[in-house]
């Protein structure tokens, strides 16, 4: 980059940096590297505290194993002998004046001159300067800190573990200028509190471990819609939930596995690496070592009554992204924002229930009047002027939709067989099998969304459409609205129409109806199957399963709250 290409910010001026006071964090050299690679990445990691591991980062840590064992002693600058050749490993140095901190993989000292050596996984890149700028800049930061401590340091080296090659890096004026710009740039964006724009169609993104959090292509697409998003965010390995609802079950940890036992007899094991969350229903207990390990691995545990009622969840120390939560609270106090979000959510929900009705209609009665009515209500939702009015529109749509819900249920050919009948939606407690299934499905969906939202750093209890009430995950209820028909209702229809759950799978007590053990297990399996189903995203055009889609939607909602997107893109199917 030449001088006239640089943005006209005061980056060139040496920023007089005040001596650090108590709560100003030192910038790590690695972060300067990230900034040089992509300013947005540095912002996500440094300011928002986001992190995700990838194969590359795991390999990188592994490549560092030799230099990560700290040396016992390395002489200070004035004690440095002139003749000795010395090695120091994993030494952390900082400078309050520069506001920098660096962990040096390896320092070599010879003739009173020190050379920092930074370990990199992989092979030496064949580029003009022998290495890419981010790595060279990182090394230069290390040199700056070393000099600040009085060492003489003229050049450094990058060691590439895979090809076992060293690349010399000379700290010339040009590199120092580049480094200074990166330091100032990062300081500027951190102080400004504005996330830099994502890179445009950059090849760097596919190698970035934070791509699923940053959503570069999706954000760019929603802002100026020119390039179709690459399916970068979709590629992620996927762990799955573990449900334990058996009576008197116990969950313990054995080695790298969860062990589930009933009456001290092992019934099932699950590899911890394959577990995304643990769902506990009813009288089940988890041992403390197991619970601690789950928290360390950031695997949430959600607790439910035996009937599926969501009681609460256990997470580790929580998500670091405070900025996101602050934005969420701020927006939630603004009536106009609340209404705008709510209108779109309700419209998407009505549209999706319309789609579901159209797809599953099984009656001779024509479906068109219902579809027209729902379409009108969906349009009307967009014109609602306040939340109560919107609630009325949603209620009206639900009444029409559930009045027709029985037409979506398959009737048995043999009239002597028991059949599912649905008259009207009721709950607390549900009085017939279909309502019981619907209630259970909504409870499952609420749980999924609550977990999902807290995993991306939002607060599930502060909503926009649903007003906060004691113990109610309002934001989860908000964002799940459009998914009620396409996930919950559709699973219910599927298990009934495929005969996976039969009328005999229910127990009834004093007019309230509930699923029995076997029925519940099959229903949970069907729900999870639905969550694994792949669909083509209507906006982005790539294939994605619902589980991952929920996360993308939640992150996009966060991007909207932080002001990066003009509107939250609701999900509707055709």
């Amino acid at each position: 980059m030449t001088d006239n290409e640089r943005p006209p910010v005061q980056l060139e001026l040496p920023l007089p940096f005040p001596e650090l006071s108590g709560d100003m964090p030192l910038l790590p050299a690695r972060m300067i590297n990230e900034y040089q690679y992509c300013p947005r990445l540095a912002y996500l990691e440094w300011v928002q505290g986001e992190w995700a591991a990838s194969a590359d980062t795991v390999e990188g840590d592994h490549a560092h194993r030799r230099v990560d064992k700290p040396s016992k002693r390395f002489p200070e600058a004035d004690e440095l002998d002139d003749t000795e050749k010395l090695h120091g490993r994993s030494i952390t140095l900082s400078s309050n004046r520069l506001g920098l901190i660096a962990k040096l993989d390896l320092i070599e000292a010879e003739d009173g001159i020190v050379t920092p050596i930074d370990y990199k996984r992989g092979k030496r890149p064949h580029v003009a300067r022998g290495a890419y700028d981010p790595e060279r800049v990182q090394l230069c930061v290390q040199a700056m800190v070393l000099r600040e401590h009085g060492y003489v340091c003229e050049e450094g080296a990058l060691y590439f573990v895979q090809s076992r090659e060293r690349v010399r890096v000379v700290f010339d004026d040009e590199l120092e200028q580049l480094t200074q710009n990166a330091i100032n740039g990062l300081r500027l964006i951190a102080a400004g509190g504005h996330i830099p724009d994502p890179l445009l169609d950059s090849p760097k993104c596919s190698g970035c471990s934070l791509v699923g959090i940053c959503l570069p292509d999706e954000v760019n697409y929603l802002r100026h819609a020119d390039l179709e998003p690459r399916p970068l965010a979709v590629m992620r390995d996927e762990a799955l939930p573990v449900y334990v609802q058996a009576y008197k079950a116990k969950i313990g940890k054995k080695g790298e596995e969860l062990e589930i036992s009933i009456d001290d007899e092992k019934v099932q094991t699950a590899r911890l690496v394959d577990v995304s969350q643990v769902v506990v229903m009813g009288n089940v207990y988890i041992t403390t070592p197991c619970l601690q390990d789950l928290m360390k691995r950031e695997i949430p545990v959600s607790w439910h009554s035996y009937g599926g009622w969501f009681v609460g969840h256990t997470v580790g120390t929580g998500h670091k992204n405070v900025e996101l939560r602050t934005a969420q609270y701020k927006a939630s106090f603004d009536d106009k924002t609340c209404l705008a979000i709510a209108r779109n959510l309700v419209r998407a929900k009505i549209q999706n229930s319309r789609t579901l009705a159209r797809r599953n209609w099984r009656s001779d009665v024509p479906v068109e009047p219902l579809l027209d009515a729902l379409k009108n209500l969906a349009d009307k939702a967009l014109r609602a002027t306040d939340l109560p009015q919107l609630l009325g529109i949603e209620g009206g749509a639900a009444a029409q939709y559930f009045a027709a819900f029985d037409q979506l249920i398959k009737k048995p050919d043999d009239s002597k067989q028991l059949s599912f009948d649905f008259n009207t939606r009721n709950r607390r407690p549900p009085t017939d099998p279909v309502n019981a299934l619907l209630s259970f499905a909504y409870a499952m969906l609420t749980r999924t969304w609550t977990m999902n939202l807290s995993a991306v750093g939002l607060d599930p209890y502060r909503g926009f459409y649903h007003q906060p009430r004691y113990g109610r995950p309002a934001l989860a209820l908000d964002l799940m609205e459009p998914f009620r028909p396409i996930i919950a209702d559709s699973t219910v229809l599927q298990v009934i129409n495929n005969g996976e759950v039969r009328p005999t799978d229910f127990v009834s007590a004093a007019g309230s109806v509930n699923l029995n053990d076997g029925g519940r297990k099959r229903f949970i399996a069907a729900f999870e199957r639905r969550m694994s189903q792949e669909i083509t995203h209507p906006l982005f055009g790539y294939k994605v399963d619902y589980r991952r889609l929920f996360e993308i939607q939640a992150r996009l909602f966060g991007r909207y709250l932080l002001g990066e997107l003009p509107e939250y893109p609701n999900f509707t199917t055709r």
Partner: protein
Amino acid sequence: MAAYEHLYIITYDIRDPKRWRRVFRLMKGYGEWLQLSVFQCRLSRKRHAELIALLDGIIHHNEDHILIVNIGPAETVKPSVVSLGKDFEVVARQPVIV
């Protein structure tokens, strides 16, 4: 989505019973125990890197030996494995419901 997960057959010879036990326990966390000292694992690139890093930290390089054989994308590998006697079931990925 699962296309980028590959199936691996991992076999090991560990000289010391203590290390052998550690390797076995680690392997149980990453794959399915197939036969004595043989596991099948379904690994993404990241998990593959993790496993190698962990195994590398346990074994002694001049005494022990671990072989990690990639036998292809996890979903489509079945026809290229011949199994006599017992059945060979590729590790499936599904939620655990107890």
